[in-house]
């Protein structure tokens, strides 16, 4: 437990920023120069809001009036990681199904995916793509991108609580008390103290994977309607309302919950400003082939592609890490077949369309997608035409230059106690890859920053080659 109702460490005060008005802060200790850009880090004050803005600028100190331009200059062309979460523990045995293993039909009397030579998985033909995973199977066949598949990913001592296991994946460590996310620690290292859009949850709630100790991050459900308006108010009075709203977020306090509420208010004001550029940017949406059916995932991925495309004076918005939930819930204890097929199909088809969207916009070399779930399910189905919590699960990494292939291997379905057993003592799939090693590879090979200091114990983890 330990759900104390406010202010865990990552909600710490924004006071450092408020105090920055005493003088322009230097590069903070431990903050590396931005990798590979040759830019120097500059800071300036935004007088009206009393906020300090740190940007990566090319030498000249920007005037406070150039706030939007400064944000744009902070952008450069950051590489972006998109983390897509299948919430609830997706049934790995129904995505890449071990149809070539003789025990599979016995373990899955009602839920087995039928073998089909046309859908066998190249690197391990004992595995077969579910017909509902068609979108991702086609991405696998698509020469314009690489797909890496981890068919049995997890960690030592698999925890079968949704909340604990998900927490491990979110914080990037086997630490039940961790309070910052792995992407949050990345943003604390390379991000800026006043650019909330650098870490963006496409959701009504911020993903804990993005929780930072210091730098602001953002969440939004949509990009078209983010504004603070009230009754009958327009023109100068609307501008005053927004300015005052921003100022209320800059008042200092020693109370942690109040400080956090103010930090969020300041971040919200900034996010409004950033998103307004997305809605005014002229951009024709390419025909990316999204499924006709409307879904939350579809509208979020469409918005994300649009947002990544916003370009002001040659600069993209300073987005670095994005989280989004896959379609539906994946905790299929009973009556699994219908919901699961629908969710898998919706997720994979929209993912495929999102990739096309990025490619057609010329953004595919900026984005890497990692799709994951907190655990796989038990190989043996239960009596409710469903499956209970298991151990190792499936993850996918998708990107233009990702090395096509497997991360780890499928360990088979032989019982615990036999040589090379695929199952553990609880009858669950044994992990052949560690998610923390995958994260380390993403950080080092894609985001070009050292995993040490972000992933605890990274030094001892053998990195899979992703790129």
């Amino acid at each position: 437990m330990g759900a104390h109702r406010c202010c865990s460490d990552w909600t710490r005060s924004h006071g450092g920023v408020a105090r920055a008005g005493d003088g322009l802060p230097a590069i903070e200790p431990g903050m590396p120069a931005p990798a590979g850009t040759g830019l120097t880090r500059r800071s300036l004050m935004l007088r009206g809001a009393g906020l300090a803005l740190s940007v990566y600028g090319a030498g000249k100190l920007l005037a406070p009036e150039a706030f939007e331009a400064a944000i744009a200059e902070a952008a450069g062309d950051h590489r972006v990681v998109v983390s897509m979460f299948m919430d609830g523990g997706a049934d790995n045995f129904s995505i890449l199904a071990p149809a070539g293993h003789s025990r599979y039909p016995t373990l899955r009397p009602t839920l087995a995916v039928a073998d089909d030579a046309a859908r066998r998985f190249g690197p391990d033909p004992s595995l077969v793509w579910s017909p509902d995973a068609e979108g991702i199977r086609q991405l696998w066949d698509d020469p314009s991108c690489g797909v890496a598949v981890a068919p049995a990913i997890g960690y030592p001592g698999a925890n079968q609580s949704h909340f604990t296991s998900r927490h491990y994946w979110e914080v990037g460590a086997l630490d039940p008390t961790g309070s910052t996310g792995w992407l949050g620690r990345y943003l604390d290292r390379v991000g800026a103290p006043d650019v909330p859009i650098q870490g963006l949850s496409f959701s009504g709630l911020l993903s804990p994977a993005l929780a930072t100790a210091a730098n602001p991050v953002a969440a939004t459900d949509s990009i078209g309607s983010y504004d603070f308006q009230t009754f009958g108010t327009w023109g100068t009075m609307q501008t005053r309302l927004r300015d005052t709203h921003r100022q209320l977020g800059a008042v200092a306090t020693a109370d942690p919950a109040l400080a956090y509420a103010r930090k969020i208010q300041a971040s919200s004001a900034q996010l409004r400003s950033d998103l307004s550029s997305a809605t005014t940017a002229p951009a024709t949406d390419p025909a990316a082939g999204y499924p006709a059916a409307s879904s939350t995932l579809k509208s979020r991925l469409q918005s994300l592609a649009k947002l990544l495309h916003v370009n002001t004076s040659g600069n993209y918005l300073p987005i670095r890490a994005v989280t989004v939930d896959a379609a539906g819930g994946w905790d299929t204890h009973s009556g699994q077949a219908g919901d699961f097929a629908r969710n898998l199909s919706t997720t994979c088809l929209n993912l495929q369309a999102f990739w096309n969207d990025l490619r057609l916009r010329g953004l595919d070399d900026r984005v890497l997608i990692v799709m994951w779930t907190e655990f796989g399910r038990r190989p043996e189905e239960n009596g409710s035409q469903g499956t209970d919590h298991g151990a190792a699960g499936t993850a996918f990494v998708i990107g233009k230059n990702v090395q096509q292939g497997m991360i780890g291997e499928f360990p088979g379905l032989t019982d615990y106690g036999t040589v090379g057993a695929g199952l553990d003592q609880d009858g669950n799939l044994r992990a052949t890859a560690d998610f923390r090693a995958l994260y380390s590879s993403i950080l080092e090979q894609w985001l070009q920053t050292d995993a040490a200091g972000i992933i605890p114990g990274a030094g001892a983890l053998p990195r899979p080659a992703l790129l």
Partner: protein
Amino acid sequence: MAAGTTSGKTRKKATKKVACKKPSRGASKKKVSAYKKCLAKQRQQANAKKKQKKTPVATTPAPRPLSPAAPPPTTPDGPIPTPPPKPPRPAGLEVYEGPFGTAQAERLLWRAGFGPKGRADADRLAAMGLEAAVQSLTRPQGAATLVGPAPVALAPRDAWSHDHCWWLDRMVRSDQQLVERLTLVFHDWFATSADKVGQWLAIDQNELLRRRALGSFRDLAVQLTVDPAMLVWLDGIENRRFSPNENYARELMELFTLGADRGAYTEADVRELARCLTGWRADWSDADGRLVNFRLHANWQDKGTKTLWAGKAYQRRGNFDWQAAVDLCLENPYHRSFFVLKLWSYFVPTPPSAQTQTALESLYEWSGRSIADVVEAILLHPDFHTGPSMVKPPAVLSAGLLRAAGRGVTTTNWGWRADPSGQRLFFPPNVSGWKDQSWLDTSTHLGRWGLVYEAMNGVAATSGSYSGSTETPAEAVAAALRFWGDPTIGADTLGVLRAYADQARPSGVGSADFRAMRQNGLRHLLASSPDFQVC
């Protein structure tokens, strides 16, 4: 029959524990069977004893005195023999002794209810003094009354989002604010979503939570285990002896009674507890369009021997059923710390000291697992009154805005306003409830702005309606404060609002328009301000 003989003996010697001789390995089936029956008898006896013990607690009427010194009841046949004296109420619980004024009363009303109905309400509570103020919340008399403007017509069991509006109305109007607040606490604790169970069963469960909110936690946990909504939500009706479904067993231990990752139970315990919980079923009714007739079906029950907490000093073996499953969890030594820490966390943002935690655990056991007793001690504790502030949950803010403005649930817009704010009642995100430590982010911040909009909707200032043609900036700020019942707001925040009000009328805006816009801006900024989000 051996069983009959045993039964006759126990009737005579009701107090003597039945001794069961464990048969040796490989003993005849008959001996083993007799042993099992004997064990069952032991259990029956133990349960009967438990019931005896529990009775005085369960029937003690509210309000209860702080020390249990009620005179023994009498019967026509003479006085009932005095029960063994109950041990004294556990010591070691501090009580806040500082000033108890408007600000303290506001915090109490926001955390143990849904905020004051304006300054007069907070001052009324402050005048009572701390102990009476707390007891007015923890020891309500009789049934709750709904006071205030009636809501728009609602069909909570049928119409989309009316469930949310229906409960919001109770939060706004109930004169038993803590009962309503604890109903919300337990809705989060035993989080069940109407997304899976439907509105009908969800409302039934809500009424169960409300009835049991101040009672014994054992009763609550037992009743919820076989509550139809819960039986659907965590697949209790899919859990049969031929094919156990672990869903409820796991969450009963992990989220409801023991907690994950503290060594309280193992994966083997999840499987064994699932076996205890087998046997519930229901029928689909086309006429009602939902599941009905929830019942225990003996043939689906696993009647074999289960072993819980294997290898621990408190290991238990027996033919446990669903009710025993709940008791096994509540008697697990990890339960009481789980209970008091979780309950505490809903009211105080910092963890209790080890001494306070121990004292609360003793109080919990001493009181027969009384929720009211533990909540009362928490509300009286210095940490509650002197510690840092907490973020108001969105549903609490919604109800509190309406209470502050003296308004009711006059629109079902509250239904669609709820999700963006981060809390739609009856739709927790998953079985672990809402993530209360992360109510605030840029998305829910905009959602809260929308809640304030809705609380102003229909009564916003217009150039025609808003008087105050000679209103000064200071008067405009005061009027906005008055609109929200004069809450306590920090001087820094008031300074920023005053600077906003001080700005001159822009050219091109008429003076009446200007004052209305300024007033709406002040009201909106005030109630959405960080100061108003915490308590």
